[in-house]
């Protein structure tokens, strides 16, 4: 008989090993899936994980794209991880991301065609505020009325999607767009275009902000008293209350940070890679960031690596579709496996396997 025995403390070794194990298991099971689809498994795995970095034809383009794709994921996931540490489950980062983009873009477009250097920073602030305000709805409802922030934040995603649709088809619509939906394109407005800071590196302000967020989150969680309070609230809510930590303040703080970061991510995306507000502007970054946060063990450095890994599977997955004709759904399944195996192997962090008979292990 195999028996699971709870460890007195989560294993430090396994905390680091499980993400790697999850990646390996995903490769193995994903490879079997690709083989069943009649595609060469090793080639598919190589295309997903290796080619975006080293393929002679594509890598020059796709390597910088890793940063472009990972930037918003990391920025949002950092914000989410702080709340998750405190046991505050913001599932609606997608909505905060949309509202940040819409608010920031609206503020910018109100000044069109200004070429002031202050405009872009103003838009970043507006984007952060937009996301923050959207996150304050579940926060205030939770602290005042005790509603569940998971449901409220998730439902607000659909509200935000409708606001986005109305923005792109009416009040932010490009007046020169012949009646078609979509705002003006920020790429054609140099004063606010969030371009690559150095050509062909993929580094735009959003990526810079993501790196700053990683460092700031590390300092906050490891060195700052609020970080301690956040962790304490998550791990021992009663103890936190006894030591004078106000649960309401922690809720407001955590949802506020994650909302503001998601909003900024939206603003950097709309003024940079996406270029304009469109009906389908949001492409799921807010939801994928939840996977990134857990894959990175809610640790800032882990999230940085997890964001890059996730971006790699996106870009590699596209190459695999293109070069091997893999169906798009199989790539999504492959990404889903990553989270599945991570959660499955997580058991080993908290439990030890015991073989009851003979006690050989």
């Amino acid at each position: 008989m195999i028996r699971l025995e709870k460890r007195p403390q989560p294993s430090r070794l396994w905390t680091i090993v499980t993400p790697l194990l999850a990646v390996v298991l995903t490769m193995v099971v994903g490879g079997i899936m690709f083989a069943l689809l009649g595609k060469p498994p090793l080639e598919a795995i190589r295309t997903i994980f290796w080619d975006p970095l080293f393929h002679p034809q594509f890598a020059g383009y796709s390597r910088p794209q890793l940063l472009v794709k990972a930037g918003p994921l990391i920025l949002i996931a950092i914000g989410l991880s702080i709340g998750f540490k405190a046991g505050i489950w913001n599932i609606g980062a997608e909505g905060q991301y949309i509202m940040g983009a819409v608010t920031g873009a609206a503020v910018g477009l109100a000044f069109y065609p200004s070429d002031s250097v202050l405009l872009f920073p103003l838009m970043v602030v507006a984007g952060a505020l937009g996301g923050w305000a959207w996150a304050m709805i579940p926060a205030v409802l939770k602290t005042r009325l005790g509603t569940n922030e998971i449901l409220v934040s998730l439902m607000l995603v659909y509200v935000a999607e409708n606001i986005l649709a109305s923005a792109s088809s009416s009040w932010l619509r490009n007046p020169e767009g012949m009646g078609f939906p979509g705002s003006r394109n920020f790429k054609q407005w140099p004063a606010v275009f969030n371009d690559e800071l150095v050509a062909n590196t993929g580094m735009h302000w959003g990526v810079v902000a993501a790196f700053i967020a990683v460092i700031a989150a590390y300092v906050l969680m490891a060195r700052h008293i609020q970080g301690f309070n956040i962790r304490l609230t998550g791990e021992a809510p009663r103890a936190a209350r006894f030591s004078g930590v106000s649960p309401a303040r922690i809720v407001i703080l955590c949802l506020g940070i994650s909302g503001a970061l998601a909003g900024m991510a939206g603003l950097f995306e709309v003024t940079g890679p996406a270029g304009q507000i469109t009906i389908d502007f949001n492409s799921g970054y807010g939801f994928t960031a939840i996977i990134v946060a857990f894959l990175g063990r809610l640790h800032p450095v882990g999230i940085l690596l997890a964001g890059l890994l996730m971006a790699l599977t996106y870009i590699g997955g596209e190459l695999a579709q293109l070069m091997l004709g893999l169906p798009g759904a199989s790539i999504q399944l492959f990404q889903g496996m990553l989270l599945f195996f991570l959660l499955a192997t997580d058991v080993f962090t908290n439990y030890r396997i015991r073989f009851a008979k003979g006690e050989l292990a």
Partner: protein
Amino acid sequence: MKRRTLLASAALGLALAGAPAFAQDVPKIGFVYVGPVNDGGWSQHHHEAAVKMKEHFGDAIEMIEQESVPEGADAERVLTQMALSGADLIFTTSFGYMDPTINVAAKFPDVKFEHATGYKTAENVSAYSARFYEGRAITGYLAGAMTKSNKIGYIGSFPIPEVIRGINSSFLHAKKANPDVEMSVVWLSTWFDPAKEADATQALLDQGVDVVLAHTDSTAPLSVLEKAGAYGFGQAADMYDYAPEPRLSSIIDEWAPYYIDRVQAVIDGTWESHNSWQGIGDGMVGIGEITGPVPEDVKATAEQMKADIASGAYHPFTGPINKQDGSAWLAEGEVADDGVLAGMDFYVEGLTAEIPN
């Protein structure tokens, strides 16, 4: 002899040194879809047309496809990777790919692009779209003729010119059949969502509507109409499974002839950028067989209308037509020009609803 070898090796050298686009033996044709290729709607039709095109040419071409590509930054990356992989011609099959297509095309002047339903073109970017409003004239006429309650409904996706044209065209021709007809419009903010479409159909039925025209792609409205004993039309596909009732006819997207035509042009080296807007006459818009209890005279009129539109004898937007506010738009006998139609953002007189803002 020596000169010939020299030339041959020079040519080989050129081929090797040239852009990857020229290194292939056969033209490589790419397709990018916004939804999964089995969505039962827009993307599936483009995919099926692409497969027909591939069957037509067999090994003379290579085809690559990418599905579920979000519009915006992701599209730009996917298109760039496709161009880098040596594609010669890339079809971008959704409106939201317009700016990404133009941006990527500027970086790859040797790769040709075809963008569906947009309005921007470039030296190496064509725009192509279908005059669905021609088909909507016929389904609108049938709807007007078949309603007993004098109330017909229209399920709209997004208030963009394409859909507004469809609403206006349907309504004008429903009125031709039945001057007392009223039309209710419901907006869903989606192109494909069976549950929402079914709810909208039910809501229209509850208002007393008995014929529903849908601008969304699923068969859900027809299955609701079937239970209620009301009528509807096939959208994007023939949806003949619902004939003879509740499906009275259909508007069918026929992209394959265009794809075959354009790929042939690439093979022949005659491809040139254009802005193409094709209708019933060119075969891009198909009208499904008229079924159900449609009276013979109505059927004959509808078929005559189809023939006249195809031959160019009749334009669905022929004056006198007033705008919703009563101001004159087209004078007696005047025909709408493509520019106004392309950006249409107003209802015609008689529609009571407002375009959502």
